[in-house]
């Protein structure tokens, strides 16, 4: 028996209707954007995010009670899930192809795309609408599925609930997070910070910077064209890594180069010589020999710093051997943290090793790049995120779900 061809908008809705509705919502979002501008996530500051969260949960509960209703059936259908995935992929594609800004905008950049909110995609109405629709649909799908002790259900639950928790708390909790930058001079104590808009704020937390140290990698040598400052060879710059254990003559760009001596913490001792002095103003220096059939030269080479002049070895009138500026290996701030409640923590703060003090996390942020080792200050980022732990729960669930997917592969359904 042939089934009668289904007409569009005839229940139950399928891909056609789902895609039309989802893209209709995106068009409404873009229209709204041109009229009233972007969505301000900071409106969702506590307790307003709590109210909205409760409304979402009530909606999901309603979908569970009235699951026979055609609308809720459609809300939890694969047609809508797939359509929403397509929508979020396309919106992310815009996000990935356009340059995003933080509000600072040149007048020449104000064009149709600017009015559609392409430059701040994640807070454009279209993106926000699709995000909330995903929260509703995904939540209703999780609620509807009958729990069972099967592989299939476990993997479904871990992946979908994990994702829902991350989206729910990261999105709705965004306005409650605070992040500030604090600059502290060596030997001083500071409690004032700068927010995103560079406004000064006072925090109930103070940091004293006892000492700031930078360790540097051993630099490299290169041959440059003095007129164009290009490193040879022109298309594929080559660097000679200084290696104190290897002082053999090597062939480099057609020249024979030999490292005779190297001092990591060097200070000029005469016009043309260096000696080792472990102080902040010191800079790496290498005693280098260069040979061809015509020339045989030796000289100290150094990249210098803001106090010491650079030194180069002139091969001829157009080429010279130079040292690259030393790259930082690690920077460490020796700090003491005080809070209003009376806690006092002393530690060495490094990149990738933040410090947790009460509700705050303190990160090593930066230093005076122009001064390098001689930087007179260190900067820290202070982050407060009350919803972090629950987001981590979501990440853990999703991680476990993906691990099970790897283990079982296609057999997860059985």
């Amino acid at each position, binding site marked *: 028996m042939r089934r009668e061809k289904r007409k569009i908008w005839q229940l139950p809705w399928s891909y056609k209707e789902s895609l039309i509705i989802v893209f209709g919502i995106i068009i409404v979002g873009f229209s709204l954007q041109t009229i009233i501008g972007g969505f301000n996530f900071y409106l969702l500051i506590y307790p307003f995010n709590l109210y909205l969260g409760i409304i979402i949960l009530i909606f999901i509960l309603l979908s569970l009670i009235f699951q026979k209703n055609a609308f809720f059936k459609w809300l939890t259908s*694969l047609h809508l899930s797939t359509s929403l*995935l397509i929508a979020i*992929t396309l919106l992310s594609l815009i996000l990935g192809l356009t*340059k995003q800004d933080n509000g600072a905008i040149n007048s020449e950049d104000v064009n149709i795309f600017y009015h559609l909110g392409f430059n701040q995609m994640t807070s454009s109405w279209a993106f926000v609408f699709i995000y909330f629709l995903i929260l509703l649909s995904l939540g209703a799908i999780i609620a509807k599925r009958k729990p069972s002790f099967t592989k299939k259900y476990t993997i479904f639950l871990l992946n979908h609930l994990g994702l829902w928790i991350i989206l729910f708390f990261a999105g709705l909790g965004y306005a409650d997070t605070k992040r500030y930058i604090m600059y502290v001079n060596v030997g001083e104590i500071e409690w004032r910070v700068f927010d995103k808009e560079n406004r000064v704020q006072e925090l109930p937390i103070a940091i004293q910077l006892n000492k700031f140290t930078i360790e540097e990698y051993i630099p490299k040598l290169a041959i440059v064209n003095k007129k164009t400052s290009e490193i040879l060879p022109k298309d594929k710059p080559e660097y000679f890594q200084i290696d104190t254990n290897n002082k053999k003559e090597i062939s480099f760009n057609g020249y024979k180069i030999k490292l005779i001596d190297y001092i990591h913490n060097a200070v000029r001792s005469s016009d043309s010589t260096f000696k080792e002095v472990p102080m902040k103003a010191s800079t790496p220096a290498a005693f280098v020999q260069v040979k061809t059939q015509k020339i045989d030269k030796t000289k100290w080479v150094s990249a210098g710093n803001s106090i010491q002049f650079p030194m180069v070895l002139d091969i001829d009138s157009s080429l010279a051997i130079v040292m690259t500026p030393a790259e930082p290996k690690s920077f460490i701030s020796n700090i003491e943290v005080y809070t209003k409640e009376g806690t006092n923590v002393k530690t060495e703060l490094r990149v990738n090793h933040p410090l947790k003090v009460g509700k705050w996390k303190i990160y090593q942020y930066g230093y005076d790049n122009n001064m390098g080792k001689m930087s007179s200050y260190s900067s820290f*980022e202070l982050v407060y995120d009350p919803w972090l732990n629950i987001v981590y729960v979501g*990440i853990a669930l999703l991680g476990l779900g993906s691990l099970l*997917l790897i283990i079982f592969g296609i057999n997860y359904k059985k």
Partner: protein
Amino acid sequence: MNWEYFIWFAIPSIICWIGASVLVYNTKFKLLSNLLFILGISIFLLFIILFWSSIQRPPFRTIGETRLWYSFFITTTGYITYRIWKYKWILSYTSLVAVVFIIINLLKPEIHSTNLMPALQSYWFIPHVTSYILSYSMLGAATIASFILLRHVEKNENEKKLEDLIDNLVYVGFGFLLLGMLMGCMWAKEAWGNYWSWDPKETWAFLTSTTYLIYIHTRIHKLNIKISLWILIIAIIFLSITWLGINYLPSAQDSIHVY
């Protein structure tokens, strides 16, 4: 051991892999082809080990180094898939992809021995990158299989086993993709205080994974297989942009992932 020696390991590996890929079609040489393929992988792995121990930092930093791992993982994935699913062409095609990546590394190495900047000195570094490259190699193998299946579909041939193979590779590959992303989140939180900041590389990784999710959902729904296979091909394009193309995007010039 440095990149100058790479060619002396790369060429023998290539010879082994190509030899195995040809011999596998002849049942008389089945054992020999298996041995050759494993020998090729072993020679390649030996270079990675010697290289790693001499540069004194994990070789996951430059694009050239990730291509090195990719060649290793895609041949390993190809071999395991061949042993389980018995498709001979998977050996040939994964060898071909590995050879292409080796040749790129020989011609355009992009291997300036970069020092590890402080943000990259983390125990998340190795699992994060390994998970991604493993995922890329499985999804790459899935793409090869999807081209083969598309040809069968054009001829109206039913290939249920091949469909299962693709689904399996995508599920496992997607699992690693997700795991790599989540580890990236944990790492980003420790390094920058933010688990997600829509950095261009993050955005592209996100939309790559949503595209694979579209594939998975259309498969659950038993949508026309042709549509699903084309989604896989779009997904591998997005994946390539995430991995190799980011550096060339104007939107990504301030990205913290450009190297």
